C-alpha cells in the first residue's frame, strides 16, 4: 500500500494533509483494512474545536468501534457528509475519503507526526505480531 508522501500520519492511524494554514484529515488504508467493512462514521460539526491527540469522532465497522484522534489542533471548517450515507467509501479509498478539513491552530504540531516512510515501517511492525 502506497502512503502518500505529502501526508503526515499518527500512530492511531489517521492521516493529515497540510495545505498552508489548513489541513485535511482521514484514516489510513491500514486502519480501514484492520477495521473491515466500515458502516458508520460520527464526525464533528463545522465550527468544532479539535485538539491534537484527543478524540474528535468515531468510525465503526461491523465488528468494531474505533475513536478518531486529531493529528493536530484546529477548527473544523468542512465535513465530508457523503461518508454519512456511504461510509464504505473509506474501505475503497481511505486516502481519498477525507473526513474533516480544519484550520490549523499551530502548523508546527505536524512536525511531530510520522512521515509516510516512518508510518509504513510502524505498521509493518504492528501488523507483524
Amino acid at each position, binding site marked *: 500500500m502506497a502512503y502518500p508522501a505529502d501526508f503526515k500520519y499518527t500512530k492511531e492511524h489517521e492521516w493529515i494533509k497540510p495545505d498552508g494554514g489548513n489541513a485535511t484529515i482521514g484514516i489510513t488504508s491500514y486502519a480501514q483494512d484492520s477495521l473491515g467493512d466500515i458502516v*458508520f462514521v460520527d464526525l464533528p460539526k463545522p465550527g468544532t474545536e479539535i485538539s491534537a491527540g484527543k478524540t474528535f469522532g468515531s468510525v465503526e465497522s461491523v465488528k468494531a468501534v474505533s475513536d478518531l484522534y486529531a493529528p493536530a489542533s484546529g477548527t473544523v471548517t468542512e465535513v465530508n457528509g457523503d461518508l454519512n450515507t456511504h461510509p464504505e467509501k473509506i474501505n475503497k479509498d481511505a486516502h481519498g475519503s477525507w473526513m474533516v478539513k480544519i484550520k490549523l491552530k499551530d502548523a508546527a504540531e505536524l512536525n511531530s507526526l510520522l512521515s509516510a516512510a516512518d508510518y509504513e515501517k510502524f505498521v509493518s511492525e504492528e501488523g507483524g505480531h
Partner: protein
Amino acid sequence: MVDFNGWDMPVEYSGIIAEHNAVRTGVGIFDVSHMGDIRVAGREALASIQHISINDASRLAIGQAQYSAMLYPQGTFVDDIIVHRLAEQEYLIVINAGTREKDFNWVRDNTRQFDCVVENLSDDFTQIAIQGPRGVDVVQKLTDADLSAVKFYWVTRGTICGLKNILIARTGYTGEDGFEIYIPSDEQTSARVWNEVLQAGKEFGVLPCGLGARNTLRLESKLPLYGHEISDTINVWEAGLDRFCKMEKPEFVGRDALDKAKAAGLKRTLVGLEMVDRGIARDGYRILNSSGQEIGYVTSGSYAPFLKKNIALAYVPPELSAVGTEVLVEIRNQGVKARVVPTPFYKRPKKS
C-alpha cells in the same frame, strides 16, 4: 485471528458483509470445531436428558434433534444446547465453546443417578457448518446420503468426502437452512474436507465465513448467544425461550424456580430494537428512558448486513417491551433513539 475461548479463530475471511450475504443468498461455510459434543448413552439416557434439559426429549424420534437448554436449580442458564437422538438409547448434546468444561461437568455430575455413560467427545470431531439456501446442493455433491429425506433439525449418517458413517445434521446457527457435519478431528482430514467443501461450493459462490458473520447472522435471526442473551443470571422467561421449555414435564433441573419466577412476574424481557436515529447499539450499552434513567442494557448489537439496518437485542422492563415503544440507547454519552420491533429481525423465506 482472535482468541475465542482458547481457540484461534478468524473473525473474517473476505469481509463480514460479503460472508453474511453469501449465507443469506447462497452458501457459506464455517469451522465450528470449537463447539463441544457430549454423548449420553445407556438404559436411562432419555431419563437423564429429561432431567437436565428444558425441552421434551421423549418426543425425539431416532435421527431427530431439538433446541433445548440446561438450567441451574435457580432457573438460569448453564447453556443452550442441541440434543440429537442418534439411536434408541443414545443422544448427542452439542454445547458452546466458552462453556465446554463447565457443561460437561454439569452433565456428568447431574446424571450420576442414572444408568448411562456420559462422554466428552469434543476433541474427537471437527465440526463444519455449511449454511445457506444452496448448502444442500453443496453437501449433496459430497455425500451418498439422500439429503432430500433429511428435514430441518434431523440428522443422518453417510459417506462424505470418502469418510464413512459421518454424522450429517440439518442444523445451524444462521437462521438459514444448512448442515453441520462431524468429521474426525485430525488436521489432515479436517483440512482436506474443508477444501473439498470449498471446491464443491465454488459453482454456488461459497465463501468461508468467520466468527463475525456467525454473530451477525445469528443476531438477525434472534438466536441467543451465551454470555449475551442468556447467562447464569437470566432465566428462560426473560430470554423469551418459553416455547422450548416444557413445563408439562414433571421434573427437570430449574423447573421449580421457573414456576416461582412465572408467578412472581417478569422484571425484564428481551426485545429487538431498531435504531431510529444514527448510531449503532453495541453489546453492553445502556438503555435509557426519555428522562435519561437507565432501564436496561443491550445484549448484542450491530449493523445487520442483510437487512441494512442497525439492530440490537436488549433487556428492558416488560412495560417498555411493546412493539413501537421508543427508548434511548446510550452511545458515547448521548441518548440515541431506538424503537422496539418484532423479532426475529430476519426470517428466511419459506420454500415454495
